[in-house]
């Protein structure tokens, strides 16, 4: 999976919780939570959508490493089973 594909999937996950987000105006190097109206439940739902789409479970301790869109893409690229859904029992 290329970084562009990961980026597209992350943006889709983000728009799932915040449909008003315009990817064209989103700064990818600035924290999402300053630019997008996300409360803690939205944020968790966003990470769950990333998990569902890309198979990467971002632990709570790593939240600081996924603050920006670029961070999210980099984290998924380096931790992902490359878009393989996580088999049941291995979570």
């Amino acid at each position, binding site marked *: 999976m290329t970084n562009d594909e990961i980026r597209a999937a992350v943006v889709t996950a983000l728009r799932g919780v915040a449909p008003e987000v315009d990817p064209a105006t989103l700064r990818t190097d600035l924290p999402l939570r300053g630019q997008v*109206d996300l*409360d803690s*439940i939205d944020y*968790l*739902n966003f990470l769950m959508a990333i*998990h569902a789409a890309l198979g990467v479970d971002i632990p*709570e301790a790593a939240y600081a490493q996924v603050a920006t869109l670029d961070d999210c893409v980099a984290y998924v690229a380096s931790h992902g089973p490359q878009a393989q859904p996580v088999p049941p029992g291995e*979570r």
Partner: protein
Amino acid sequence: MSSPNGPSRDAVTELRMPSLGADMERGTLVLWKVKPGDTIKRGDIVAEVETEKGVFEMEADGAGVVAELLVAPGTRTLVGAPLARLSAESMPRPAAAPPPQAPAAPRASPAARRLAAERGIDLASIVGTGPDHAIVIADVDRAIAPLRPPTAAPVPSAPPAAPAPSPLPAAPTPTTTRADAVRAMRQAVAAAVARSKREIPHYYLSVDVDLEKTIVWLAEANAKRPIAERIVPAALLVKSVAVALRSHPDLNGVWADGALQLRDAIHVGIAVSMRGGGLITPAIHNTDTLPLDALMRALSDVVRRARSGGLRTSEMTDATITVSNLGDEGVTSLFGIIYPPQVALVGFGSIAERPWAEHGALSVRPVVTVTLAADHRATDGHYGSRFLRQIGRLLQTPEML
């Protein structure tokens, strides 16, 4: 509204436009989910109702057999207006008579329905491609693109826009724009908060609570959990309020007819901000009895449905207290406006590291400011103080929540 003449004490003779809160004056019947001859019981979803705050699933407030539908889909009525007549006993199904619904209202998602209304498009002219041929937003988009969609279903005889003859008064189709919807939402909020500030003598208290134990416990618990089972601090805060209410019942109820009316069940209303503006406060039923996992799921679910539609009428009417949490926005504290006829609102600010003095020493702790806005007709500051103290105490043993 309850009628004693039926076989069941639960029997009612009418379904009426429900009040979904102090700020609601009117509602639009969007869709019937029952037809004459159907037997219904309390809690059954009988219709979809739209207010300034979105589309809600209307639950029956009693049991009976639907005798007659009195209003057609699209009709806007005052709260309390009769929508359907019920009979107490089952009756032979009207074999020949078609339901007065006439052209069965097309199934459509709330978003599709709203977009179609915005653009003045008749849903009956659209072919649905969703589950069970429901009309989804993409179908409405397709209908908008060409002025007269060539792919529209061949409608037998009548042109799509002509309403089939119906014994019910035809409802004018309101053409709402997004700006109208936002204005309506603001007016609904304005009515509720103005009434609250006019009628309720508020008193306000606040306390800072050391959340070190809570945050450490939560981090350890979440580290072992898959993402879908993780718990956010807000769930613990809500649970602490619900459990503290058990020992402080005077804050769990409504002020009505000049007196405090206590409620046995604890249904915490959650203040949820709507994308695009406005506020809605659906209730989580029996909050104090839910294990933390179940409460987290309920919280997540109610926030999702508050924003996407699909809340039930009971969730809009049953709250016995409200919790508002603006912590995610970084504010230190919030002093809320009580949602009438409730008598209390608990506010949480952000959980932030602050200097904390204890036993003559200074350290840094995660701290939250908890506030209480309460109705002074119902309780006094002394009682409210003890309630806040109990919340703080409960948060020192998160594993017990």
